[in-house]
């Protein structure tokens, strides 16, 4: 039995297999419509999440399975002080697979120690969010046709953004990737990502402050939100916030094939006027998220179609 805690739990070959399966699901949804008949997915969400929980539920329903669970800690036994270990032992009796989101980092890993069903980490605090990374990889591979030979701009909050960290860790395993890290000084990549991931893998990257200076060189722009509360003073925030609002003017500087991705939710960092640009891929990303979660459920349940 396998669990998914980190995007690196899958080797590059296994990941290729998973993404191939997700692509096949996209092309032939009917073939998989009853693949999980009689199976139950438990969604254990100890903190609210709209997109991730609905994406998992949609994935299981499209596979013919059923869903049960809770969507915040207050409506679970956690409010009575039940441990994660006890909850997962109980849920193992009700469901065949579970997706867990928890505000505490490492909670899904605690569950794997006693669970008799596969556990998927659906986000644990600021630590890991592997299915977002799988979604990002699926989107890139589907729309670009490859996961290597790419110049990827990572823009915004690179310090606290876990989706960016996970994506970097996953992409350094592919050939000829170049990262362009676009952020204010205050929100640059943390040392451990630069030293333990980028430098340790001999990865090429550059760090810049202005999006306009580099957007023309990118195959892909991964936007994240710059959060006001991360700044030490209002002045710096005001000085930098507009650098990272992607609008039509900045998109004119980008190449015709550059894709824009965003893990969502966005606030104002991508202007709505960009939504209809064919290069805007962030809503397609949501759809790919369902396909890749369907592929993941099938893989972990060892269901062959």
């Amino acid at each position, binding site marked *: 039995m396998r669990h998914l805690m980190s995007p690196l739990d899958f080797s590059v070959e296994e990941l290729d297999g998973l993404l191939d399966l997700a692509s096949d699901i996209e092309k032939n949804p009917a073939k998989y419509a009853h693949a999980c008949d009689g199976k139950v997915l438990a969604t254990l969400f100890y903190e609210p999440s709209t997109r991730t929980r609905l994406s998992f539920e949609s994935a299981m329903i499209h596979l013919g399975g059923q869903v049960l669970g809770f969507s915040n800690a207050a409506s679970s036994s956690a409010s009575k002080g039940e441990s994660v270990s006890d909850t997962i032992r109980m849920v193992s009796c009700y469901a065949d697979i579970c997706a867990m989101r928890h505000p*505490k980092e*490492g909670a899904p890993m*605690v569950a794997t120690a006693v669970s008799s069903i596969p556990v998927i980490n659906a986000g644990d*605090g600021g630590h890991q969010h592997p299915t977002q990374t799988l979604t990002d990889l699926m989107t890139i591979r589907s729309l670009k046709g490859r996961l290597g030979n790419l110049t990827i701009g990572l823009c915004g909050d690179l310090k606290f953004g876990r989706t960016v960290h996970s994506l970097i860790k996953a992409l350094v395993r592919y050939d000829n990737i170049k990262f362009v890290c676009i952020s204010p000084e205050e929100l640059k990549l943390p040392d451990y990502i630069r030293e333990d991931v980028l430098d340790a893998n001999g990865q090429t990257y550059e760090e810049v402050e202005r999006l306009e200076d580099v957007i023309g060189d990118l195959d892909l722009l991964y936007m994240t939100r710059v959060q006001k509360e991360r700044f030490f003073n209002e002045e710096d925030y005001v000085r930098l916030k507009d650098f990272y609002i992607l609008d039509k003017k900045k998109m004119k500087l980008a190449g015709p094939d550059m894709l824009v991705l965003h893990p969502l939710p966005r606030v104002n960092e991508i202007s709505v006027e960009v939504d209809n640009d064919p290069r805007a891929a962030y809503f397609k990303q949501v759809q790919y998220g369902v396909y890749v979660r369907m592929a993941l459920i099938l893989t972990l349940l060892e269901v062959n179609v």
Partner: protein
Amino acid sequence: MGKSVLNVGRISEGFVLDHIQAGKSMEIYKYLNLDKLDCTVAIIKNARSAKMGVKDIMKIECPIDYIDLDVLGFIDHNITVNIVKDDKVVEKSTLTLPKEIRNIIKCKNPRCITSIEQELDQVFILTDPRKEVYRCKYCEEKYKRK
């Protein structure tokens, strides 16, 4: 006045820990939970050392299976461990960094599941032997030594 000599008696069974970085012996006393054992312990602080200038030495008289020495590698892997049995040094071992340490140090990340889950072991994994980096098994937070 002549130089005074400090004599610490021989032990018949137990450990002599030599080449401890000066000042670290009390930390070792704590990590080995020696305060909870009834054994005889001698701590020599700031002993002269040709190699180190000054060093600490510890002598612990106890059955040799009483103490888990793995933790010593984590504290300071340059310590020399002499294992004594029947009044003789039967083994001189050098230490390596343990790959995993359990319930010795605590994760300080307030967002880590170890801060709330009942009776969960505190487990740290050696992730970078060159830089001696240990990370919490659950949240991967780096353990910062004092």
